């Protein structure tokens, strides 16, 4: 019998095919030209605009919106991409409600910001769908740079370096480029294989060689790279996952949320992905929300997001929390897992209620769980790296590490939020610094 949302255990194909397509379609459908013009007309063209300050890549938002409003979306795209080469992805995945749109003066005025993210997508899609790459390389400098990691930080750095005339080799441990754009971001934020399309478009600059299945630490050492190249940029993100130190934490049905999501992102058929009837996600960040929402969209009957503190302390924005709630995810707060019960495979999870200061209350609760997803933070993997700061690579200025000739940016580097847009900004700024030091 075909499984349904009510079937117990971990099962694939709980929904009809049509339901999967519907569930994983675009979260914010693209603007059509009319919607874009109406939205663009709301921008006040602020002086020294607060939205720009709030964008980690400092895109000139009033200018690009004015360019849309005056019928030149390709010029708008160039304004965006000059600051943020992954403006297309950022337009889809940025938590704009805590970045540019939160700072928009119309948020203050009316509680309804200008739809900056969607306008950004309108412009970048308009240009990229024509296959136009508006940048070209400067004269060759004869310098070469190694970039470790083909995520947003690495690709942003690589593009800027290539544009400035350097030759860039990008190494990535995974079989496909894009980093978490390809393996992490929620499927409904970047449908239709946008991540790969964007990478293909980005590489049109030329001068970038991608080396797949090449992991720093396995296939090469940092010392080798330093010897073979004039500079090295580390943008390998956070490959490790925090362990769930709890009784029964190794039972079947317990897995890392990032692995669950990576499988989901690589799946060509959502109906082939197994998901529990009762799913419990542990964590309070974007990864936790994405894992919870996508479990629900895969057909799980009951999905609980269990967070140890109050909602106000969750890393996931209010928008993300509301999105989870609207999809039917139950958010439990002030709970810490104490034990996983079940014979071989997990059947129940037991939490203790905790106070705001994390002290236990002695009160416990058990809820059904045939799948438990850990989303309690990622960690930096690897050794023989530059000095660390709080578990990440310590940097000063534009990504300079403790090692000469080695820069770092994105999630693996200390400081800044773990966001796509921050990774892009840090990669770009490191490239400018590398350029200055190579040409200096």
């Amino acid at each position, binding site marked *: 019998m075909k499984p349904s949302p009510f079937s117990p255990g971990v099962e694939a194909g709980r929904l009809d095919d049509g339901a999967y397509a519907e569930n994983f379609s675009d979260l914010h459908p693209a603007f059509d030209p009319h919607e874009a013009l*109406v939205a663009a007309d709301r921008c006040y063209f602020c*002086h020294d*605009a607060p939205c720009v300050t709030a964008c980690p890549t400092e895109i000139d938002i009033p200018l690009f919106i004015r360019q849309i409003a005056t019928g030149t979306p390709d010029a708008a795209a160039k304004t965006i991409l000059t600051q943020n080469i992954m403006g297309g992805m950022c337009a889809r995945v940025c938590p704009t409600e805590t970045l540019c749109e939160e700072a928009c003066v119309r948020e*203050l005025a009316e509680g309804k910001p200008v739809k900056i993210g969607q306008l950004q997508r309108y412009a970048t899609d308009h240009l990229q769908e024509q296959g136009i790459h508006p940048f070209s390389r400067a004269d060759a400098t004869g310098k070469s740079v190694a970039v470790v990691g083909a995520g947003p930080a690495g690709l942003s750095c690589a593009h800027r370096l290539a544009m400035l005339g350097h030759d860039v080799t990008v190494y990535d441990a995974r079989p496909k480029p894009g980093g978490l754009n390809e393996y992490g971001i929620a499927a409904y934020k970047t449908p239709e294989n946008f991540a790969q399309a964007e990478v293909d478009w980005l590489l049109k600059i030329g001068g970038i060689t991608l080396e797949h299945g090449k992991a720093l630490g396995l296939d090469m050492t940092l010392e080798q790279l330093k010897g073979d190249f004039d500079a090295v940029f580390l943008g390998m993100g956070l490959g490790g996952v925090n362990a769930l130190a709890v009784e029964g934490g190794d039972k079947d049905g317990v897995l890392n949320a990032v692995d669950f999501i990576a499988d989901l992102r690589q799946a060509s058929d959502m109906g082939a992905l197994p998901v529990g009837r009762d799913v419990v996600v542990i964590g309070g960040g974007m990864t936790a929300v994405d894992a919870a929402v996508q479990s629900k969209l895969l057909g799980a009957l009951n999905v609980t997001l269990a967070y140890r503190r109050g909602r106000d302390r969750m890393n996931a924005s209010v928008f993300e929390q509301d999105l989870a709630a609207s999809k039917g995810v139950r958010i439990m707060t002030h709970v810490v897992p104490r034990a996983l019960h079940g014979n071989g495979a997990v059947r129940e999870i037991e939490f203790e209620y905790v106070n705001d200061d994390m002290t236990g209350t002695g009160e416990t609760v058990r809820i059904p769980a045939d799948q438990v997803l850990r989303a309690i933070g990622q960690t930096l993997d690897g050794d023989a790296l530059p000095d660390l700061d709080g578990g990440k690579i310590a940097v000063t200025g534009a990504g300079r590490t403790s090692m000469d000739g080695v820069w770092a940016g994105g999630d693996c580097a200390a400081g800044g939020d773990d966001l796509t847009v921050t990774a892009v900004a840090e990669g770009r700024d490191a490239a400018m610094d590398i350029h200055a030091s190579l040409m200096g």
Partner: protein
Amino acid sequence: MANLQSDFVGIKSPNPFWLASAPPTDKEYNVRRAFEAGWGGVVWKTLGSEGPPVVNVNGPRYGAIYGADRRLLGLNNIELITDRDLYTNLEEIKRVKADYPDRAVIVSIMVPCEEEAWKAILPLVEDTGADGIELNFGCPHGMSERGMGSAVGQVPEYIEMVTRWCKHYYSKPVIVKLTPNITDIRKPAAAAKAGGADAVSLINTINSITSVNLDTMSPEPSIDGKGSHGGYCGPAVKPIAMSMVSEIARNPETHGLPISGIGGITTWRDAAEFITLGCGNVQVCTAAMTYGFKVVQEMISGLSDWMDEKGHASIDDFKGAAVPNVTDWQYLNLNYVAKAKINQDLCISCGRCFAACEDTSHQAISMSETRVFEVIDEECVACNLCVNVCPVENCITMEAMEPGQTDPRTGKVVEPDYANWTTHPNNPAATAAE
């Protein structure tokens, strides 16, 4: 409730809102709908002489200027007078007037500048029972090249002559509609008065090209790749119309001549403003063409509520109330000193006032690290630009300084007395004040 009843040169209508002579009044069907919607009167679409009617272009007639969100701010047209048979129009006018005796029905006319032509049409119009006529001396395109419309309106002698014929061959009120495509609007108004006109109405449309198609290099609206100047109307022309109305209202030669105000009237407030500048009633075209006949309901309720609030029992109570305050620049009080003031509770920190003042005015607004914007009284000349560019209503206001206070910009004490340019020491032609 305020009484909106209007009596314009003896023509009565339940409210002062008339539809101007234009497509909304081109036929019985439209006019009946307009009356059902509540319009006080109509000026029927301009009639021409007996015989084959004029023909219109068979392509686009209108061009437009937009504000944010494609809000229509200005419309231009290359339409001519009615392209329907004279007798059809006359029969319809007669029927409609008979069915709506309480509404004003005015017949707009444009025939060649020959006495015979007027002598021929006026009895036919008289026979319809309409309440009056309006002479279309304004249409700036198509008809003017044939010696009619604004070609007449631009020559005061012709206006006077034709008006006189009309007063001779027609027994009811004659309204002369003026073209704004002229240097000094007072001249044609005076000519109309001299010819015996009961009233003037203004403005007709303004010569204009609204846009050029950058692919085809044709002005819009484009007829097979070519365009022609059209007549401009809608919200954008209101300031021009009001200035012209006020000129006629305060010119001693024409003061007191009844005026029907036209040009960009879109809301009850626009209408009230025209009336304060001396208009006895108003006419509307573009607002109806943009939003349909229903807009009159807002005009009626808005004007009525405002009159109640101000204690005006009738239109006459405030008619012309602003005319004495329209003066020449040289008589403005140079001892009046104001300063811009920003209400920090309303400010949304967009910085537009700063950009405007810093880049293009007097560097009189400061911006802090935390985006607090404040007026620097030492620099502010009270130009009003910040008020005009601020997106939040009443966020920036102009506050008058009290006599006796010292203006931090000039270091001078604000004088209590009025003093203008005519006596100012910097004026070489100043006449010494006693």
